[in-house]
């Protein structure tokens, strides 16, 4: 920590050395009596040039020195108190702070004979506008999504919760990136234990860079090796606002539109924002469909393998004969067939994510024609398997959150293999292990499977079916009392 020198030349030399080979740093000095008395340093592209010109250069060049309302000891104080019409103006005492603030896009003003630097917050850079979140689109509700700029994101939440109890604690994480992370919560509603746990963990993070919120997500999780994520991510400010009101905690990270929400349960992965925007009767149906489809996406390949190869007596006779007929010429065992098709399906999915948009249709053609039809016609894969795998794939897409589908994808493989080896016994073992793991899992003190295990009758209302809002608010109780 070295202090800023009184000598402007020394300071300039230090900055020029520090910013050596940084072509986007601009030095602008002003001379008085052939002697440099004033130095402006800023990062080109990160500052509003218009603001510098209007608010700093114009008064400096055209107006001349101020007359003064009071006796001023230094030139720097003159600038600060009488000259620069800026709201956010402060002084730095050390060279490190100065360098840091310049890199953040502020304007550094150094005056000869003054041991402090004036920092004017004039930063401004190109950002993406607020757009509809593509990954989590809803049929009804807000079309706003988070952007990369954290200030915009905080304002998106503030616009929804107009209450002083909404707190936003700021943290800076990352040695090189110096990323701003904001811990948002509702004071009095959020659990203090969760808050202190998160605060403690945020303080312990040692990272060179925080590029995305996923970097801190992994630091925060208690069970890093669990396949189930214990933190939800979202780009919808309305989901964050709703979660904050429910007493959850949100983390915003600069540079990414994805906010983190914690603690979460298993079921929050299966709930969509639309569940709260549609009439509750239809939501009940939709949720039912979603839960059934989730089970299908998890278990159908395993069940097919177990039933058709170990317990053919459990399938209705005509269906079983149909399956046998379709499988008459298949060269591979059912397990291998299912595995091959699942692998190809996931491969296609992965290819579809990375492909440029223009090539998207190519993948679907290859997938549908080459692999689907040709494999069946060539007799490599039997038709029931195609049906099973495509149904599984469609079922997986009913899960609203993408990151919630990933564990199911993995479990699907494991269940399928163990069912292929041991039949129903294996399937049962797989499900039991999965349930044991889920019951043991906790997300920041909240049991992952709650309110099912441990059972909570009042909260289960919002899990399986969504009650109308007025029941949840307890309004009907008041009505009855009247």
């Amino acid at each position, binding site marked *: 920590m070295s202090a800023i020198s009184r000598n402007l030349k020394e300071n300039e030399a230090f900055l020029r050395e520090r910013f050596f080979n940084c072509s986007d740093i601009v030095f602008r000095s002003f001379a008085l009596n052939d002697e440099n008395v004033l130095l402006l340093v800023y990062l080109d592209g990160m500052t509003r040039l218009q603001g510098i010109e209007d608010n700093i250069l114009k008064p400096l060049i055209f107006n001349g020195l101020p007359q003064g309302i009071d006796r001023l000891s230094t030139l720097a104080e003159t600038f600060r108190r009488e000259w620069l019409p800026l709201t956010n103006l402060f002084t730095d005492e050390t060279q490190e702070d100065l360098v840091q603030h310049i890199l953040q896009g502020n304007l550094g003003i150094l005056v000869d004979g003054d041991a402090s630097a004036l920092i004017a917050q004039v930063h401004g850079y190109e950002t993406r506008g607020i757009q509809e979140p593509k990954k989590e689109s809803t049929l009804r509700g807000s079309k706003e999504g988070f952007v990369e700029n954290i200030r915009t994101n905080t304002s998106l939440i503030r616009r929804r919760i107009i209450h002083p109890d909404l707190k936003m604690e700021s943290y800076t994480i990352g040695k090189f990136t110096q990323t701003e992370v904001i811990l948002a919560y509702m004071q009095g509603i959020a659990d203090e234990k969760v808050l202190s746990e998160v605060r403690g963990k945020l303080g312990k993070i040692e990272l060179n860079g925080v590029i995305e919120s996923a970097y801190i997500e992994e630091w925060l999780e208690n069970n890093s090796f669990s396949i189930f994520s214990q933190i939800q991510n979202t780009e919808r400010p309305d989901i964050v606002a709703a979660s904050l009101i429910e007493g959850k905690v949100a983390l915003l990270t600069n540079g990414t539109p994805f906010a983190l929400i914690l603690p979460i349960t298993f079921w929050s992965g299966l709930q969509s924002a639309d569940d709260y925007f549609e009439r509750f009767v239809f939501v009940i149906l939709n949720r039912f469909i979603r839960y059934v489809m989730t089970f299908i996406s998890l278990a159908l390949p395993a069940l097919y393998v177990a039933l058709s190869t170990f317990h053919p007596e459990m399938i209705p006779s005509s269906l079983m004969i149909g399956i046998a*007929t379709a*499988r008459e010429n298949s060269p591979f065992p059912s397990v291998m067939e299912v595995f091959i098709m699942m692998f190809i399906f996931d491969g296609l999915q992965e290819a579809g994510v990375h492909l440029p948009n223009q090539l998207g249709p190519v993948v679907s053609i290859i997938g549908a024609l080459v692999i689907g039809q040709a494999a069946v016609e060539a007799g490599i894969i039997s038709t029931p398997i195609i049906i099973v795998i495509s149904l599984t794939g469609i079922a997986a897409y009913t899960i609203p959150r993408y990151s919630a589908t990933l564990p199911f994808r993995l479990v699907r493989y494991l269940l399928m293999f163990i069912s292929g080896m041991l039949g129903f016994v294996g399937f049962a073992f797989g499900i039991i292990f999965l349930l044991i793991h889920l019951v043991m899992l906790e997300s920041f003190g909240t049991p992952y499977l709650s309110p099912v295990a441990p059972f909570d009758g009042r909260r289960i209302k919002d899990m399986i079916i969504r009650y109308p809002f007025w029941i949840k608010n307890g309004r009907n109780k008041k009505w009855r009392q009247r």
Partner: protein
Amino acid sequence: MTRSVLLTIVFLLLVLSSSGCTDFVEPNQLAFVIGTGVDHVEDGTMEVSQQIVIPSQLSGQAESSGNSNSFVVMSAKGRGIFEASQKIQKKMSRRVMTSHRILNAISEEFLIKNDGRKLFDKLNRDPANNLRDITVLIKGRSAKDYLMLKHPIERLSSISSGKELQINGLRRFSTRQFILDSLSEGIRPLLPVLEIKDFKENDKKTDPIAVLSGFAALNKKLKVKGILDVDESSAVIWMAGKGSFHAITIPWKNGKGILAFRLTHLQRRIRSVHGNDLKRIILTVKAQAYLIENTTSLDMSEVDNMIEVQKYVNEEIQKEFQITMNKVQQWETDVIGIGEHLHRKYPYWWKAQKDDWDDNFKKVQVTVKSNIRLKSVGTSGGQIK
């Protein structure tokens, strides 16, 4: 630590896959038995025939209906079903699977010359047997012949008979029910009887097909005591409380024209005339009648005629059913389950009866009463003039 965990996982996978993957049987390694036939052989053994589906013949929708067979019948002789089945298995390239069986066919000859109870022990004891299938009796011909028959609509004769029985509302004649009945003391089993008859499909072709020709009443030793024809068996099934649908056509009093009814909501009630003195039993049959055909001169929109017809139907049914009841009593087989009913109502009385119920059943005087209510006379009143 990591190393040992990894090793454990690898070994576990190897153990599971090496032991587990030999257990599974792919559907194309299975031979699905759809029907089983049991025949008598003179040397005291039995001949078991299995009707087995050929899946590859079923795949094409149109082509297979012609010449090629969609099934094969394999038979073998043995002292028991299991021994014979094992012999069949040795001839097969696939594992014989009986869980999808729809039908058990037993030839009449077998039940006459052998102890049927021994056969059903084999069907009951092995948990691999699917007791949802239907057991039928083949009259006249051997069960093997029956299994070899082709059906003009269905691909397999077993499937056709299974469907035939289901469509006609006789779902309660599963092997499970048969075994329950044969083990109960107060009821004797009824067995559907199939007969092979020639059937003219079109002007060129005539093929034999199996048709339901009645029900066989078996006694405690599973010997056939008598065979009821289709009308009589319908009455017995109703009186036994197993029916759901009954159709009758009766001529009108003056002999001019007929009346046809569809009867639904079939019920029966058994009660004793003098409390604990169970010499005289009244069996009441109850149903709702819907008039379907009326070729008499009666105008059914007249309330008097309706009452008259209702009364007449009751009398006719009472008469008809009484005859059938007497017939069954003469055979000494309580297929109606009167004994079982009385067993539940008068357990102490039953203790004295159960040992020779077949004999006692004959002595009980059963009166059939009928309580048919005419629900609908259809859309027209009298005859259209």
